[in-house]
């Protein structure tokens, strides 16, 4: 496969054609913060945390979903990007109910990690805190929509890896909810295989195991790309 050369934060980086900016940056030790991205899943570009600047483009682009190009000049950290990332995380924190102290994901949560990394000690916007609902009808798992950030990792892992497509998104805008099958209680799902990948993929405490101790296990399914390759 042809190789390309590009510049990321002043470093010359070599990459495969078709590779994402994110992957090329990570291989060369540049850490771009991400949230909805999970290696091995098709990037959604939904959270906008991994935005980077590419010279010649008017707006920042999501590094997870943008392919490298020859001689591309990428900046992964700037004042503008830092402000945008901070704003994104603040908006997420204000959107639903993220009370870390009483969350199963406390100290393992990707959203919490980002807030800490960006030094977010207050939120400029008013907390909306809608009553988004909890579904604990499944015998082993539960979903707390109040902690969902709609990153769609669960939707994608269920569809792309497990092949069940139990999860999807219903409604739109602020009323969007992760729904099970035809918007029915998880416990009544006829497609869910109970594999638990969605719970593992969830970056926050929205999806959890019922019988687990008060803390959810360390997250992020590893090796999904490997899994995919082997399946073929």
């Amino acid at each position: 496969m042809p190789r390309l050369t590009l510049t990321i934060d002043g470093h010359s980086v070599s990459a495969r054609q078709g590779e994402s900016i994110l992957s090329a940056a990570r291989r060369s030790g540049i850490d771009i913060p991400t949230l909805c991205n999970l290696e091995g899943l098709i990037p959604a570009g939904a959270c906008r945390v991994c935005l980077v600047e590419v010279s010649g483009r008017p707006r920042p682009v999501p590094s997870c979903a943008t392919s490298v190009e020859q001689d591309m000049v990428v900046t992964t950290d700037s004042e503008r990007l830092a402000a945008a990332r901070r704003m994104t995380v603040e908006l997420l924190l204000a959107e639903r109910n993220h009370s870390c102290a009483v969350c199963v994901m406390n100290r393992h949560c990707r959203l919490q990690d980002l807030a800490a990394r960006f030094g977010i000690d207050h939120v400029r916007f008013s907390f909306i805190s809608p009553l988004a609902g909890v579904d604990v009808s499944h015998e082993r798992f539960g979903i707390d929509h109040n902690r969902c950030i709609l990153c769609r990792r669960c939707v994608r892992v269920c569809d792309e890896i497990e092949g069940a497509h139990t999860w999807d998104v219903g409604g739109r805008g602020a009323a969007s909810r992760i729904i099970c099958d035809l918007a029915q209680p998880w416990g009544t799902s006829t497609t869910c295989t109970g594999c638990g990948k969605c719970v593992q993929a969830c970056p926050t405490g929205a999806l959890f195991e019922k019988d687990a101790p008060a803390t959810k296990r360390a997250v992020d399914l590893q090796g999904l790309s490997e899994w995919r390759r082997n399946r073929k």
Partner: protein
Amino acid sequence: MNAPEAKNKGPATGEGRLRIAVCQGSPCRAAGAEAVLAALRETWGAERVAVIGTGCMGPCSRGPLVRIEGEGRGAAYYEQMTPQAACAAVKAHLDGTDAGQGRLPSDFPFIARQKRVVLEQCGRIDPCDLDSARLAGGYRALAHALGGMTPEQVCSEISASSLRGRGGGGYPTGTKWELVRAAGGRRKFVVANGDEGDPGAFMDRTLMESDPHRLLEGIAIAGYAVGARDGFIFVRGEYPLAAQRLRRAIADAGKAGLLGRNILGSGFSFRIRLRIGAGAFVCGEETALMASVMGQRGQPVIRPPYPAQRGLWGGSTLINNVETFGCIPPIIRNGAAWFRAMGTPGNSGTKVFSVSGDVATEGVLEVPLGTPLGEILAMAGGTVGGDFKAAQTGGASGGCIPASHLDVPVDYESLKELGSIMGSGGLIVMNDQRCMVDVARFFMRFCQDESCGKCVPCRAGTQQAANLLHRIAAGEADPDDLVRLEQLCRFMGETSLCGLGMAAPTPVLGTLRWFREEYERHVRDRRCPAGVCVMEEAPCRG
């Protein structure tokens, strides 16, 4: 003007015969145009008079509209017709007294000063009658293209015309066509975007309701030029009449051999299907529209790949606005140079605008690009209910133009310089009784409602921006809120995934640019200068 009536519309078709046209577009029908048409047919549908239902004549707020012409005299338009008034008007016309009630002056600017290219047959032909469209020149451009032009020639003719996309972006249409034509792949598609969701926009509805065959012809020519065999028209679910007339037009054109297999014996086959939207504004965004056409949830995906690279079912796909397709047949018929002669360099041709709000006459008008905004306003009879304050162009994705810039030529670049956009052509005129904070809040709430919810800046940002605007309008904001609002708006514009989120803050930024003082008075003095926003009395402190 002299479009002969359909050949089998009655015994007499002579030029001298009196022709009565009754607008049967949605606005006129809502005002009772069906009853007017029925009454005229019953009373005057005799040999001396031909009565037909047509599409839109333009000044929609004055409907039901009736046009009477023939018998050696020019056309006369009558406004706000009732069945009785219409019958009386015809009688007066026949008697030669011309004293019918409701008659519009012959130089009525809304009609007389238009330059109709896309809408040339709207209000003249019967949209439910293929013969009527063909007699007025319909499908001649398709026959010409199929008979005497190669696909390359069609593409280069469109490129030479400098036509730009009428959906709002202003991307050169010819370039887009060339890209799809050059793309490989087994199947290609052409899609007409008729998901006209902007508040105050009804140009595409007018064309689809009034001259559906024009749209079909434009799409078929595009299909021939880019090498596609399948076309789709995506019509928003709120346009049942447009969908009904298009469905009929597709069936009629198919029977007449103008669509389907081996069109006009040329060997070119092309099929057009209708897709009805389910009420999502975001489906006007091309990637969301394609998802909807394929039966998926209507939400955008990241570009690139652009539809020309990978679109419907993986094939290269050409997506143009309905009005853009409406420009194609006249360009093929009259040549690129003719089209370029209209408008200004870089902004050739005409543009259809739907004018609404505080103007004397609301409706649809077509003028050359580059026409000053003030001229369009004057055609609509000027501002009513107060002095002119601002005009919102481009709907929820656009900004406003203040009175100090009424002389701005309406073209893609000039509007952009003023912080607005051309958009699809909605033009909302506001008088000085309107509060700009309230206007901005209306549009932000609209975007909040219509956000698909996929990306954070749009989903959560519109909620917070609407909250902040609400606080300002309610007199509950502090100066920091204004700073926060501006930061949030710039952030949304830069980081959102698709055009909806990127453009959602434009109405706020536009009103802030020209009417910042009004925002500040809401915040500082807790007063709404226009007297629109209801403020709570300041709580008693201490």
